[in-house]
């Protein structure tokens, strides 16, 4: 008895200490990454520039201005309705924190709030993972789970300081919603369910991945029904959740009426109807005799099934249904590759190799199936939920690398359960059954204890390896902002290539405020954010034909491209060229995607086969196809490059990225002139000469002669 209370008390203390310890520990890990790069705390990748710009707009102009914001500096000349095409949760959260802090007279700049938002929320994620796992298993497992999710690379990749993106707050919302759902199924109280709905509302405002929640929870209820685990708690929880959650989710302008129209949300509605029918039948069962009930039951079920079936057929036939996301996730994803090249060209949408699993999850990926085994062997209502979560998440993570993020929380939870079950029995004294003490019990005890000790030591070593791995991965792979490139010289010193920021700053200082810049869509948000100029296409990629037009301009010869640029009022063209330093993410390497996207819309003018040699190779040297050697992108990339000799061993005009000497060295422009090339030739900006000036110059020449 004494022993029990003691350990209970000790546990209580440990809980508090550990709770602060890992919110602190992951904060330390994440801040480490901040200290790694320069104090010019920069927002790392492209998309974040847009998020930051919107938040800035929100804090300067107020909430309603933000909701109604029409951005005419993006997607020139179309503009973009930001309020209706973005998930506002992230901006509103940052704006709210900024407002509250400033109200308390702690003057914090909005940029600092944005940069540090993700680590703060990942601390909150650790706490909600603890709560969720505690509901599922016990407190020890909860602590381990929170520990794991604090340092696991799969989650850190999206929540470093400076990563101001939806996923940073969305995973917190996801875990918290799941915790409240599990709590409401366990208790059957409306209070917890309403809490779950509010958390779900926050999730809907934060990320498009809310579709996962609205499909997983109905699946959970459905499986519970199949397993004959129906109870009043489930009925109360789900009915309340569905209705209130539905109404709340439709308050977000971007979501609008989708929850009652698209097929992704229909599962939830179907399960709702089914649950009502089932509950009604249970109610009748208590009041009718067995015979009457059986006939009624069969009649009712067949009628209901028939009605649902006919409704689905009718709605699909009349086109009220639309399949949007599902077709990309259910195999074959070949559909996207053939029909929508933009989707296929994003590297994050590729399937996952086992190396990615291991890289992001290390030992957790080997041990979480054991946790799943334990869960299923000791099944109850909430463990059904986590089993379904694991199975669906692992399927989606296998299909798309980006969805590894949704797998990470459940992997942390299940491996925590596995490790906790093992540690429970091997750590400390075993006060359980065992054989009655024998004569040489002390000898037995020693052996047993040493055996336990060895097992515990080995397990701890494995976990230490995990921690070391996470630190290494975070510092090497997920730390550097992609705006600033770093390369290492022979002597190990670091060479910083700051070309991007140099070029954007040049644009900002040396061009007219209303100048329009044409570039490929990858750089749209960065140009809009850092150079503050109007762009034609950006990372939102909502308008495929506009992007195809830009692609067509890049792939055509100079005169055809000039016509397109005139029609779009382009003043400057910006390209990325990596041939001097060997940077492989430049525009010539992306060029084929530009051609494919352009060909999709203008098949008569652009043909992908024209850019290949007769043997089917893509070459930039003399053997390359003449269409390629004369297109605008080629000319802009290699202008004056033919005179440049990088190394005495290679001829002038040797492209380091393609490892070839370029074919067309004598490049002259008729309608463009070079405006700026950055230090390592990474970013090149060209000015479009407008018709007036060329006419004037020829007139002047005539006048002089």
């Amino acid at each position: 008895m004494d022993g029990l209370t003691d350990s209970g008390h000790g546990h209580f203390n440990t809980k508090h200490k550990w709770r602060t310890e890992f919110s602190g520990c992951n904060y330390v890990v994440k801040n480490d990454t901040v200290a790694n790069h320069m104090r010019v705390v920069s927002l790392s990748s492209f998309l974040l520039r847009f998020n930051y710009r919107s938040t800035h707009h929100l804090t300067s102009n107020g909430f309603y201005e933000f909701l109604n914001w029409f951005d005419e500096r993006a997607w020139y000349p179309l503009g973009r309705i930001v309020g209706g095409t973005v998930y506002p949760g992230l901006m509103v959260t940052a704006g709210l924190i900024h407002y509250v802090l400033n109200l308390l007279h702690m003057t914090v700049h909005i940029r600092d709030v944005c940069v540090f938002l993700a680590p703060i929320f990942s601390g909150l994620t650790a706490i909600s993972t603890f709560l969720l796992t505690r509901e599922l298993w016990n407190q020890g497992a909860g602590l381990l789970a929170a520990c794991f999710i604090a340092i696991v690379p799969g989650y850190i990749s999206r929540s470093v300081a400076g990563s101001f993106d939806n996923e940073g707050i969305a995973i917190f919302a996801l875990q918290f919603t799941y915790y409240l759902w599990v709590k409401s199924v366990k208790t059957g109280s409306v209070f917890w369910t309403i809490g779950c709905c509010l958390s779900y509302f926050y999730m809907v405002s934060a990320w498009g991945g809310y579709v996962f929640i609205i499909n997983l929870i109905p699946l959970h209820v459905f499986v519970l029904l199949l397993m004959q685990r129906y109870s009043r708690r489930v009925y109360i929880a789900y009915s309340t959740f569905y209705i209130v959650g539905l109404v709340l989710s439709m308050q977000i302008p971007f979501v609008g009426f989708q929850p009652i129209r698209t097929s992704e949300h229909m599962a939830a509605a179907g399960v709702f109807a089914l649950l009502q029918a089932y509950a009604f039948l249970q109610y009748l069962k208590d009041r009718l005799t067995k015979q009457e009930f059986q006939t009624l039951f069969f009649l009712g079920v067949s009628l209901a099934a028939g009605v649902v079936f006919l409704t689905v057929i009718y709605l699909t036939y009349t086109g009220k249904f639309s399949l949007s996301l599902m077709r990309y996730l259910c195999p074959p994803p070949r559909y996207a590759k053939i029909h929508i090249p933009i989707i296929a060209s994003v590297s994050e949408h590729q399937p996952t190799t086992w190396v990615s699993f291991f890289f992001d999850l290390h030992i957790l990926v080997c041990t979480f199936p054991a946790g799943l085994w334990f869960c299923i062997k000791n099944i109850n209502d909430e463990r059904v939920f986590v089993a379904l979560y694991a199975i669906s998440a692992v399927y989606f993570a296998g299909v798309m690398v980006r969805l590894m993020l949704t797998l990470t929380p459940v992997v942390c939870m299940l491996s925590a359960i596995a490790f906790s079950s093992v540690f429970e029995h091997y750590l400390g004294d075993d006060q359980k059954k065992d054989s009655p003490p024998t004569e040489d019990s002390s000898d037995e005890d020693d052996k047993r204890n040493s055996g336990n000790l060895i097992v515990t030591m080995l397990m701890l070593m494995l976990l230490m390896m995990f921690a070391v791995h996470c630190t290494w991965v975070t510092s090497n792979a997920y730390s550097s902002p992609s705006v600033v490139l770093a390369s290492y010289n022979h002597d190990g010193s670091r060479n910083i290539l700051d070309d991007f920021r140099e070029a954007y700053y040049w644009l900002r200082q040396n061009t007219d405020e209303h100048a329009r810049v044409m570039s490929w869509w990858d750089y749209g948000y960065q140009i809009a954010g850092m150079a503050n100029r109007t762009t034609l296409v950006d990372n939102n990629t909502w308008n495929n034909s506009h992007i195809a037009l830009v692609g067509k301009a890049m792939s055509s010869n100079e005169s055809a491209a000039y016509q397109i640029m005139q029609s779009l009022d382009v003043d400057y063209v910006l390209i990325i060229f990596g041939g001097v330093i060997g940077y492989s993410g430049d525009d010539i390497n992306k060029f084929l995607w530009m051609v494919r996207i352009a060909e999709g819309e203008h098949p008569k003018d652009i043909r992908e086969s024209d850019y290949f040699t007769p043997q089917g190779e893509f070459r930039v040297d003399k053997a390359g196809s003449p269409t390629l050697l004369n297109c605008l992108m080629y000319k802009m990339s290699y202008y004056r490059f033919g005179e440049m000799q990088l190394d005495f061993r290679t001829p002038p005009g040797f492209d380091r990225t393609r490892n070839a000497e370029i074919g067309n060295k004598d490049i002259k422009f008729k309608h463009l002139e070079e405006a700026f090339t950055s230090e390592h030739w990474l970013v090149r900006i060209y000015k479009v000469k407008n018709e007036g000036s060329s006419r004037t110059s020829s007139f002047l020449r005539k006048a002089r002669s």
Partner: protein
Amino acid sequence: MLLPLGQMMDWASKRSVIRMNGEKFRRFVKAPPRNYSVVVMFTALQPQRQCGVCKQADEEYQILANSWRYSSAFTNKIFFASVDFDEGSDIFHMLNMNSAPTFMHFPSKGKPKRADTYELQVRGFAAEQISRWIADRTDINVRVIRPPNYAGPLMLGFLLAVVGSLVYLRRNNLEFLYNKNAWAFAALCFVLIMTSGQMWNHIRGPPYAHKNPNTGQVSYIHGSSQAQFVAETHIVLLFNSAVTFGMVLLHEAATSDMDIGKRKIMCIAGIGLVVLFFSWLLSIFRAKYHGYPYSFLMN
């Protein structure tokens, strides 16, 4: 005697791909004037020619021609024909053609140009690609409609019927559905299969292993971290399941009521499995991810 156009239409109404011999070819395709263009597939379908590609290309060509024949935009401006080597070898000589299959477009006016020969090596013989080439050459868009494949739904229906009847027959003894071990095992199998990268294999179709042509050495593990072999995924699957099994054994050793000796063995086996296979996995990971500095027990 019917005019050439009428004769062609008559044949086209009987079969979508008109089979021609040398005589027909000279009269209807080569001889001017014509107010229709013809797409001709030169092939060698006889078994003794052993041209596997010809058969596959022939199927695609049939789909293309059928789509055209039954489409709403059908006109008599274009016809699809085929010439087999054994029936029209003189045509092959005349056109200096020595490979099959070849697709050529004979426009209604003028001689066929270089672009009127379809680049099979570059573009492949999928019906959609041939249709795009035709659209390039003639401005006629043939919308390729593949006949719906009923094999899938039929199999599914059959499977459901079999399962339904089995369940019905055993309806008094459905205890096997409540067997937790079975469900847990099935879930575990699925999860292990997914985390070893089988979806990547399904989508990208990599080879089983790679045999170095110079040294003859077979490597089961791909050198870079961007790709993987099928053999490699099986190895990883095995290792993952070994580690999982080890953890389960550890737990069983501590909680089951067998005698102490057996439990000790289970415990040792469990921890041994976990440590050994995890180190192995780590070493494979190191081999693929160059620059990874950590290892455990083995290199």
